[in-house]
């Protein structure tokens, strides 16, 4: 083994990868302790949609973690296979629920994607063709790979270690799209809103139908052409302007003072009590895992102040599902909360984080933390599972950052999903009957990322006139997975069609979800399965709103 590789690995051990000038000497920064927590038991395999579909070990969480470890220890290079595989992952995190060792896979796959994008940026600035590099890594022979234990021990004699040549590169088209999406659009809420206005205009003027009929849609990629049919009618600029920025409580009583304890954990009660009195203390509450609060309710001994809730709107959510946000505000208000649409908030950063653009995610997170600090609220409430899971990571994202770490933790301590908060508040007296047979598709990032799955089901069951039926495999991803249904269209649609088969079996006429991506995917699934005349997909807050 060469001395230089040995040095590289020694540096890796201390978890402090150097800033490399070229992709060749770049050592991606992985959380080795988290990687080592994977004991390779394989319990994640049956939970993983891509393993179920492909049957290949590398397309499983255990396989992907092994490959990351290979890269972190200098046994493998970041090549095209690695990139394809890391982006084949839906990021649904169902493996986290199945993992007996509690490995935080979602974070690891984000690290991997960030490493890929870093290498690509580095290789983009190089002009020489590295065609020959690809062959230089493909030399590992059977049986000759050294034991992992040797390779990651600084003084080990890892003779099988390969020369590291990270070969992934970015095409011009890819650079253009990424630049557009990550730097020019999603960092600016106003631009997303403007796109919403354009979309509204197109829909209102019938352009969408026209495009459909004239075949204009054929020039779009198949994935987007099909998806646009599922896009709901977006709110008009006039309707958007009418939004009240503060919705006062309208429930029978203000939430304060009437909450009863139903056995939440001690730490959990601390969080609620301190937050509700406005004296928000970060530290203690951040360690409470989301799952621990399941079904818990509030401590009776809190003050008499009305709970002031800051709505996290979400960028896509607020354009595509403006009404769901309005419904959330009405439901929370009915539950006794004062709801504030906090100004200057931005996209949660999930899209950036999942796509290896951690710098963008951090930028957005800072803006959100600052905006909600200013708003003087007791809770940050969101209604999109994907956003919520990303918001909950803020503490982790800023770990060790002297300026932002504590502020991020304080933000996370106040964070709640709308379902979670409603389950803690006194039961709303729903008055209108909702005649429907309802089933529920979990948002992966709400269930596997935040441990919230009982609460939405309980809320649906409370609605008068509703017949609830459980969807078999509701905890399995619907294939939406952020922008996966665009980037990996075929696999996404295969997963979706399987899902719709199960939906048909439930004979439900309403499919409820808790995330805009899933909602759009369900709408697309309804169209594909030819169920449009008798099945609809709605956000859970809209369903609750119908019963107010």
């Amino acid at each position, binding site marked *: 083994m060469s001395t230089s590789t040995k040095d590289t690995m020694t540096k890796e*051990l201390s978890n402090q990868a150097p800033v490399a000038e070229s992709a060749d000497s770049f050592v991606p920064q992985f959380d080795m*302790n988290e990687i*080592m*927590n994977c*004991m*390779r*038991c*394989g*319990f994640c*395999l*049956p939970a993983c949609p891509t393993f179920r579909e492909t*049957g*290949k*070990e*590398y397309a*499983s969480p255990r*396989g992907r973690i*092994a*490959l990351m470890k*290979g890269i972190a220890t200098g*046994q*493998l290079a970041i*090549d095209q*296979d*690695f990139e394809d*595989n890391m982006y084949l992952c839906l990021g649904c995190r169902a493996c986290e629920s199945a993992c*007996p*060792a*509690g490995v935080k896979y979602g974070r690891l796959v984000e690290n991997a994607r960030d490493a890929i994008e870093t290498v690509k940026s580095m290789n983009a600035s190089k002009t020489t063709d590295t065609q020959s590099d690809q062959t230089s*890594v*493909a030399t*590992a*022979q*059977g*049986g*000759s*790979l*050294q*034991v*992992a*234990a*040797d390779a*990651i*021990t600084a*003084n*080990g004699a890892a003779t*099988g270690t390969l020369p590291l040549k990270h070969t992934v590169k970015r095409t011009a088209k890819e650079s253009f799209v990424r630049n557009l999406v990550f730097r020019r659009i999603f960092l600016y809420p106003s631009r997303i809103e403007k796109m919403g206005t354009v979309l509204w205009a197109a829909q209102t003027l019938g352009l969408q139908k026209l495009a459909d009929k004239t075949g204009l849609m054929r020039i779009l990629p198949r994935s987007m052409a099909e998806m646009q049919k599922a896009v709901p009618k977006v709110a008009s600029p006039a309707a958007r302007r009418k939004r009240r920025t503060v919705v006062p409580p309208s429930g029978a009583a203000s939430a304060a003072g009437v909450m009863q304890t139903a056995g939440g954990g001690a730490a959990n009660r601390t969080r609620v009590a301190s937050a509700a009195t406005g004296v928000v203390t970060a530290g203690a509450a951040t360690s409470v895992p989301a799952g621990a609060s399941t079904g818990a309710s509030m401590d009776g001994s809190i003050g008499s102040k009305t709970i002031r809730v800051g709505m996290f709107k979400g960028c896509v959510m607020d354009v595509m599902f403006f009404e769901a946000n309005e419904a959330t505000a009405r439901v929370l208000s009915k539950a006794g909360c004062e709801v504030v649409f906090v100004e200057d908030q931005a996209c949660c950063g999930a899209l950036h984080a999942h796509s290896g653009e951690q710098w963008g995610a951090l930028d957005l997170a800072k803006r959100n933390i600052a905006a909600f600090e200013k708003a003087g609220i007791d809770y940050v409430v969101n209604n999109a599972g994907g956003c919520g899971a990303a918001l909950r990571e803020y503490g982790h994202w800023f770990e060790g950052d002297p300026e932002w770490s504590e502020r991020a933790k304080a933000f996370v301590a106040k964070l709640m999903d709308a379902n979670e908060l409603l389950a803690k508040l006194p039961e709303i007296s729903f008055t209108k009957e909702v005649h429907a047979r309802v089933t529920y598709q979990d948002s992966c990032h709400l269930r596997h990322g935040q441990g919230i799955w009982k609460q939405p089901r309980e809320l649906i069951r409370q609605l008068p006139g509703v017949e609830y039926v459980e969807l078999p495999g509701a905890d399995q991803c619907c294939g939406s997975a952020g922008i996966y249904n665009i980037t990996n269209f075929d696999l996404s649609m295969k997963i979706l069609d399987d899902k719709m088969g199960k939906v048909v079996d439930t004979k439900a006429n309403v499919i409820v979800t808790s995330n805009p991506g899933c909602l759009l995917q369900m709408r697309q699934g309804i169209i594909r399965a030819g169920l449009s005349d008798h099945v609809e997909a709605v956000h859970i807050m809209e369903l609750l709103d119908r019963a107010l």
Partner: protein
Amino acid sequence: MDESLIRQFREIVGNTYVLDSIQERFSYSYDATPLYQSMPDLVIQPGDTEEIAAILKLASQHRIPIVSRGAGSNLSGGTVPVEGGIVLHLNRMNELMEIDTDNLTSTFQPGLVTADLHKAVEAKGLFYPPDPGSMRVSTLGGNVAECAGGMRGLKYGTTKDYVMGVQAVLPDGSVVRFGGKNAKDVAGYDITRLLVGSEGTLAVITEITAKLLPLPESTQTLVAYFRSLVDAAKTVSAIIAAKILPSSMEFLDHGTMHVVEDFSHIGLPLDMEAMLLIQQDGSTLQVEEDIERIASLCRSSGAVEVRMAATPQEGDELMTARRAALSALARVRPTTILEDATVPRAKLAEMVEQVNAIAKKYNVEICTFGHAGDGNLHPTCLTDERDKEEIERVEQAFEEIFHAAIKLGGTVTGEHGVGLAKARYLELKVGHEGLELMKRVKQAFDPLGIMNPGKMFAKDTRRRVVIGTHEHVH
């Protein structure tokens, strides 16, 4: 591997099912056993017996090692391709071919997941008892190759007690079939039994016929806490002596209880030295009577506290401690080495005490839990593979544990298999002559030595933990 050879394999199974890129092969370089890793030259996912026969024929011609595997969940390094060659991933062959309710048998392909068989037969009121801890992911082919055990071993035995017939492909590509649905069958050597637990060193098993039982009417759970290990062990003996055979008797020592409590906060009494989790199944009346008797035997043998589950849900909650054991232990340190030294059940307390003394002597952290009913312990070492000096001590500690088990009349592996991890210690258990006989059996099946080479029989005096293992591989 030679491109033209790879092309021939592609012709047999189709392009999609031959994996040869570095990253693809890397993901088949390990199994669930810590510290072992080695690259295969090729990975093939065959679709049926004929394809396997063709692959083996070609492999024989070119002397290419064959390592067959299912989920790769084994704990003995049994599916790590230490000498390279081809990994046969059998997960495509996962058909449940038949549940024969007249003969009480089931016939299936090796890639079927154990828990899926459980579900299918239980839906028909039938029962396949072997329940290894990995049953939600493990495949039955792997269970048969390793002779997997589980929590119900005491009352129901292990995989070998259920396999009635097999179809297998020999290294030269010939297909053989032994046993079947006959409850009695003494036609020649019992090759069926020989293949169970053969760890892929003799043949590739391509079809299995297994015995089923009627599904017990009900199950009840009880937990008992003890101030001393000896009391817990005495209780186990007292229950057996009273002619009660519980469906499982699981045991957690003080160290394991501590770690579980730290991890999942379920309120375990940490001033206790040990706990037993006992389940009985059968007819509702019989189960109630047995559980009452077991409870009073626990108390008279020194249990400080005994709790019975009133409902199946409560039973599940009580089992949480046992189920959480491995997960909790896995979180404590980066590397978790799970062993399975086994002793006659009467020697249980003595063995646990020796494990604790050995851990102290070598200054390593070992927690012990396991199947008290059948003396099958899981001393679990919490360590860090990056610390070579500590791993050295872990290795010495385990070596001493295996010797201690043998001295107490036990064995070096109860249910995980020999594979790479115990190869060095097999002779301790079976003796020199025994080992030579086993090698001759291997020779009869696999004269070219291509079937899972490097497993079962140690080539030299390599040590248990891998650090040195690969020094001789190339």
